[in-house]
């Protein structure tokens, strides 16, 4: 609640009140007392009227779909219902302009409602970030009859939208998707296959005789050996280390971070899913959850879950998933690649870490 006092108006009101008090000190009867009491009661009754207006005003918000996609436009309606006999006059309506755009409702627009009147405003809404957060109407403002004050109040029932991220190529460069396209999997820098591959080089001492490619040696006129391919990692794991900031989850900075985080995760999942390469995703959803994306269908399932599915039920879960990420960074892994995405990295940390 934020109250703005009109200082000039208040001073004028107090002067009138004092004058009427002086008048009543010299003359009795309803003429003087009537004016004095009316002025005296003006402010308390205005406050009472505002309280009545606020408490007996119901606001319902609705969007046509259950889950939205960032950047797409949907039909939105807000219904104001005044359940009291006291009309609501020139109520200001304020929107969550930092995270959504409404085409037909202006921020700061004023509406009045008669006794027991319902009024509906319809607009198109576009949510700017992925995640789960409040959109639409954020606050309302009410004023007294003589403009002595304006009080801004939060809407009793806000609308929490679940916004799915867009699928982009945000993750492409980082996880070397090209590499995956070519070999259908990540290659290790250090570990080699047991069977020689197709690359050849001149024989060096110590090379196994089994690796000598006799045909090539005959052509080159020197001994040539076949080199083994670097080993292909059999599974890729995506660890989503979401931030544990429950108190900041409606903060616009948090929403923006979560938006990029989700976009990245979904884009990565898309690239794996569409090529039917198994991708194990580990993420917090109350407890630590594992999800395998290996097809378009499984990707869609993950896509529908993830927008509002990242949360911790306790600090222990966060600690456990943090520990898991640290272990993966420090260790070496046979046949396994871990991609760790940290939502809110420290300055010395990276947003993405690939461990293999």
């Amino acid at each position, binding site marked *: 609640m934020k109250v703005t006092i009109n200082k000039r108006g208040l001073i004028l009101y107090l002067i009138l009140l004092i004058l009427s008090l002086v008048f009543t000190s010299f003359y009795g009867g309803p003429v003087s*007392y009537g004016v004095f009491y009316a002025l005296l009661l003006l402010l308390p*009754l*205005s406050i009472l009227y505002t309280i009545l207006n606020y408490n007996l005003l119901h606001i319902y918000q609705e969007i046509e779909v259950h889950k939205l996609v960032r950047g797409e436009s949907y039909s939105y309606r807000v219904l104001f219902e005044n359940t009291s006999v006291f009309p609501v006059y020139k109520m200001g309506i304020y929107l969550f302009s930092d995270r959504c755009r409404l085409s037909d409702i202006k921020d700061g627009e004023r509406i009045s409602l008669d006794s027991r009147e319902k009024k509906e405003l319809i607009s198109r809404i576009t949510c700017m970030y992925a995640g789960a957060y409040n959109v639409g109407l954020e606050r309302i403002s009410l004023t007294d009859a003589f403009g002595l004050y304006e009080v801004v109040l939060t809407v009793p029932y806000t609308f929490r939208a679940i916004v799915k991220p867009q699928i982009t190529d945000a993750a492409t460069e980082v996880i070397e998707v090209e590499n995956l396209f070519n070999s259908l999997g990540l290659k290790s820098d250090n570990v080699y296959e047991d069977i020689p591959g197709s690359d050849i080089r001149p024989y060096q001492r110590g090379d196994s005789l089994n690796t000598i490619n006799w045909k090539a040696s005959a052509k080159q006129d020197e001994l040539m050996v076949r080199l083994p391919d670097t080993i292909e990692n059999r599974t890729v794991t995506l660890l989503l280390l979401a931030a544990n900031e429950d108190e900041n989850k409606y903060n616009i900075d948090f929403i923006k971070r979560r938006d990029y985080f989700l976009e990245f995760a979904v884009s990565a999942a898309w690239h794996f899913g569409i090529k039917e390469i198994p991708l194990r995703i580990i993420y917090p959803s109350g407890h630590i959850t594992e999800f395998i994306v290996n097809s378009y269908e499984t990707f869609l399932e993950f896509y529908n879950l993830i927008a509002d599915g990242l949360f911790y039920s306790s600090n222990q879960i966060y600690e456990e998933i943090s520990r898991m990420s640290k272990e993966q960074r420090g260790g070496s892994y046979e046949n396994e690649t871990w991609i760790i995405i940290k939502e809110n990295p420290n300055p010395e940390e990276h947003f993405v870490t690939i461990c293999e």
Partner: protein
Amino acid sequence: MSEKKLHLFAFAIVILGMELYLLNKDASLDFKRSLFVMSAISFFFLYFVFEQFFLSIELEDTAPLFSIMPGILLYSLIHANSEWITVAYAAVLAAALRLILSYLPYKDKVILYGTFVLDIFVLYLWAVQDIFVGRFLTDKLLIVSLVVLTLSSVQQIIFEKNAQSYPFQFFMMMGVVLLVIPMKQAPIDWSPVANLGNQLMEKVIEASYNMPEIFGHEVFTTGYSNFGTVGGRLNKSDKVQVVLETLEKPFFVYTDTETDKRMKARRTIYLTGGEGVNQKNLIDFLQLLYDNNQTRESVRIYSRLSRVSIEYAYIDTFDEIAPENSILITADGKEVVDGVGARLHKKGYQLKCRFLEIDYGSPTLAKLYQNAGIEGVKHELSYSEACDYARQIYGIDLSSLMDESRYQELKRNDASENKKYLATGKANDRMQQLSKDITESCKNEYDKCKAIEKYVRQYPYSMEAVGGHNPDSDLTTPEGMADIADRFLFETKTGYCVHSASSMVMLLRYAGIPARVMRGFRYDYPFEQQQYYYVRANCAHTWPEAYIENVGWVPFEPTGAYFVAEDHSWHRESEAEYNTMYENINLNETIVPEIPEDNFKEDTIDKGLEILKFAGLFVLSVLALLIVIFAITLGRKRVKYMLGTPEDRLKMDVVAIKKKLAYQSKVPTLDRGLLFDYVELAPNEYKENLRGVFDAYYRIIYGNSGSVLPQEGQMARNLREQLKKVPKE
């Protein structure tokens, strides 16, 4: 335009107009302002309801005219009856206002700016003519209405630049709150601020006493008060105001003449406020006893010396509250003589009183009173004789109470002293005549007093009473008392102690007997002896005292709800002795006129019947009016049909047929705008013709040639008539 605003504006105009009319009129105080104003605004609202009804039956322009008809009818019915003339005028005024305000061009602007004109007018009248000062409830109603309208107008003009206006409900809410806040006639008293801490406590206590005043000046609560009592409606309170402490028994024992058993009779004590020690009464009483050769034994029959200690509880007053005929009052060991103290007495203040308890109901004493005026003073007691006599009969040391010079001073009968107790205010012939009627057969002053007491006691007791014609009338002035008495004796005929006491005082004064009103408490002790006796606010009482020549001030009990002195007398001898000694005294046989019956119960019944009669007539008139309007509407349609073109007639026939078919259909019909839906609802034998009529209808509506064949018109008419005869399914 808000109807609420219009009603409030009309309300203000009614009150203002009424006050202007009553300005300089003699009977302005008696005019039933509240009744007139409330009737007018009720009629105004009623006309509005009627107007809405007439608008609903499409009588747009003439709706206001029709709406006021019931009021005019009512006026014609009741204007000849003087009792209802106020209501009749209110009906007419409301009708005129309704008409004017309904047809007024630029109504919004007129009310918006007219409010300021009314404000100026009211302020002018307040400043110059001294009206709207809060004497009447209507003053407050007018000011509150104008405050509400003015605030709304100022808001609209200054803050909204005339574009819109803040909800009027807010200003109405303020008006309602203002109505329940009391508005005194006196300006704000700032003196309590000087001693804030002390006063704050007093105000809290006072607020609890005065809670009913929130609802106006008409309702009061029982409790000790000064003479500013106006006699308005009363609510009971059982707040303890005074605590009595005495070692004496709270009852007397006597032998019942019928059963010959020893019986207890509760003592009754009258505590007077603001009277103090009445030494004059004591020496007058001693003189009376001396002249009648009363001895120590004989005075014991009807008088004795008593003691009581009085402690103030929830009461704040400067008055000393002590028993009647107190001869010595002390507070903190100091003697208290005056009736009113210099400081405000609060809870815990204690008085010790010695007083002469006199049984005013004793037949012996009554005999002495009767003879006192006739025989006069036989031997004037000197100071020393009085001291001896007082010691002899009561054991009182008179010399310790007063010295000789004081005694001589009190002995001098100052005629001018009693003259002020004969003032009657403005001449009131009917009261004078009543006093004469009651007392003309009485032979002495005491009998006159008893006769008047008996007469006034016939009036029924009620706390649902009203004061005088002038709301400011109280017991402080003869005019105030006369006003309260006049209204009580001749008009309302019901009231409580304030009314009966003021009435008896005025009747006594008209009978030439000095009389005054006393206030305080009347307390009946319980049968069981207790350490403390709690005198509550509902024991607060007002009673008259009459000055009987050579006797002094004698109290009476004209309030019918309380026992008269004879009923709580402790002097209950055997019947034989009673009759032998006092055979000339039979007060119960004193013949007094009865309260005129014609204006009393029958009047109430008549009024009830009259209300019923008028209500019945009014309802019948309204019904008759509705029938007339219905007939007019029907006739208008018939004429329109007769004068219409064949096409118009066909259209009307189709509408009537649709209505009839929908009415007689068993299932609810949804009008989709398709006439052929209705064909299904018709009986089979009419379906063919119905299709023909509907075809013709569609042809004249949508077809190029908009004419109807005569046979089609006839078919529609016939169908309409035939369908009328079809019973409802």
